[in-house]
């Protein structure tokens, strides 16, 4: 009986009835999402896939509260092969301690996978965010093995189309824009499958929608009379 308990406590057995328990998780910072995730947060020592329908729907806002908490606690965070320039002022405003963050550039997919394994094997990194547009199952499998041997929370950002492919990740979230909110569908989690997609309110720069359409580009200079009362930073 004791042996059975031991087996159930380890992550090697998934039970169908209840959401599985994880030994260590990092809270996502969204109570509604935490309720649906096994162990109430991002799993550490495991692969998580975040499949976004497109960029700019608030997909990174899902990860930022956890990154802010980890970096404030002095833990290291690595961004691997980001598709654009991570913008320091925005990250600082989200509460991420920039001194604990490192960006790793890897031009090719093979280099990126190699770098991911190195980062996970090295130990000091507690959260790895990686962007892989295309990745084969065997490559993800290697990454999952490296993640299991580490104590890092590994978030893999991939396009939504990848949700139909098989994956060794233990948690997969599909994200879509839904009005002003972010619709999060749990494609895969340990334990009982999730029922309906969640509608999360993530921090967005504006919430007022339905402003007038795009005005035509004004001829002449951007600074012109008649546009007073604006904040001018100089």
């Amino acid at each position: 009986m004791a042996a059975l308990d031991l087996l159930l406590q380890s992550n090697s057995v998934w039970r169908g009835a209840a959401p599985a328990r994880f030994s260590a998780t990092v809270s996502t910072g969204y109570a509604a999402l935490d309720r649906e995730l096994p162990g109430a947060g991002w799993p550490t020592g495991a692969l998580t896939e975040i499949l976004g329908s497109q960029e700019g729907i608030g997909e990174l806002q899902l990860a930022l509260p956890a990154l802010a908490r980890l970096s404030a606690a002095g833990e290291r965070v690595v961004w691997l092969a980001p598709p654009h320039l991570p913008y320091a002022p925005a990250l600082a405003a989200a509460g991420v301690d920039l001194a604990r963050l490192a960006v790793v550039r890897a031009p090719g997919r093979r280099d990126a996978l190699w770098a991911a394994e190195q980062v996970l094997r090295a130990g000091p990194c507690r959260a790895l965010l990686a962007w892989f547009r295309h990745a084969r199952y065997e490559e993800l499998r290697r990454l999952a093995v490296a993640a299991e041997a580490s104590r890092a929370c590994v978030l893999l950002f991939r396009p939504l189309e990848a949700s139909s492919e098989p994956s060794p990740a233990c948690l997969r979230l599909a994200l879509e824009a839904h009005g002003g909110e972010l619709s999060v569908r749990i494609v895969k989690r340990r334990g009982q499958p999730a029922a309906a997609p969640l509608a999360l309110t993530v921090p967005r720069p504006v919430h007022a929608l339905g402003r007038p359409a795009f005005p035509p580009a004004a001829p002449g200079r951007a600074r012109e009379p008649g546009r007073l009362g604006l904040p001018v930073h100089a």
Partner: protein
Amino acid sequence: MQGSLRHLGGLEGVLARLRSGLAGLGCEASVAVAATPRAALWLAKGRGEALEDLPLGVASGDPLLKSLGLRTIGELLALPRDGLAKRCGQRLLDDLDRALGVLPEPRQFFLPPASFSAELELPGAVDHAEGVLFAARRLLIPLSGLLSARQAGVRRIVFRLLQHKKQTDIEIHFSSPTRDTQRFTRLLQEKLSSVSLRQPVEAIRLEAADFEPLHERTSGLFGDAQADDEDWAQLRERLQARLGAGAIHGLATQPDHRPESAWRRVEAGEWDPREFRQPGPRPIWLFDPPRKITSQDFHLLAGPERIECGWWDGDEAKRDYFIGRAADASLVWLYRQDDGWFVHGIFA
């Protein structure tokens, strides 16, 4: 010697370490133990068990002794001393006395040199990286041994691959002084993977200088911040060795209103005291350079935020920033200036 005996588990332990160390250097050795250094040297040369049974050749090459019909040291010792001194000189007698411990033989302590340079001829021309790596271990082990004898570490080593008519230098930099053979090998492996060996390598040469003091560190019981930093430094240098020096960097804010100047690259892990809050919302992804847009398929949601800045350094910006929603529901950061509309970032 007493301390070493206790530390390494007796004489057998000392000998085992000595033999394995020498084998790692690629040396064949004959090892002997005796009460005096000279006796040990003779025993090792003559490969014998007792001093008396050793062939005469180990002590003296004097042809006179051979012609007398002497074969072993024992027979030599049995001869009367004054006659021997008269015929062969006092030196031979002194040597014998030193071997027996009658005369003292002070030895100078070995002082390791302050730089390392060694060359290794490869047995055959090698045209693959694994072969070079294997041979390089033969040079790295002595380097590491020398460094630990001097309690030092190096930040930079240079491998020179000598080919038929040219040579290739491989420079390896370490972020902290080290003498760890594994760390040497790992970085060399990364470097070698990026070097194409057009010609087979015939010999390799390893050079290291500028030793820095490096003391062994005891690790803490509950996690070890210093070990953590050390691991991080090693990870950085491994990534840089394969992906280039700029492959890993940190981010810092910069007090400037121009979005493209409001951040800078820093060494990963560098602390920046000058935190600067931008007055408006800023996107997580920045486009560098901004993308000019021609389609008008954006809904402006907020703005404008006017940024007019930088006239003093010749890179003036006069822009009105808006937050816009694209047709695919993503939020972008747009600006308008004299020559049209641009997307500068994405609110991911």
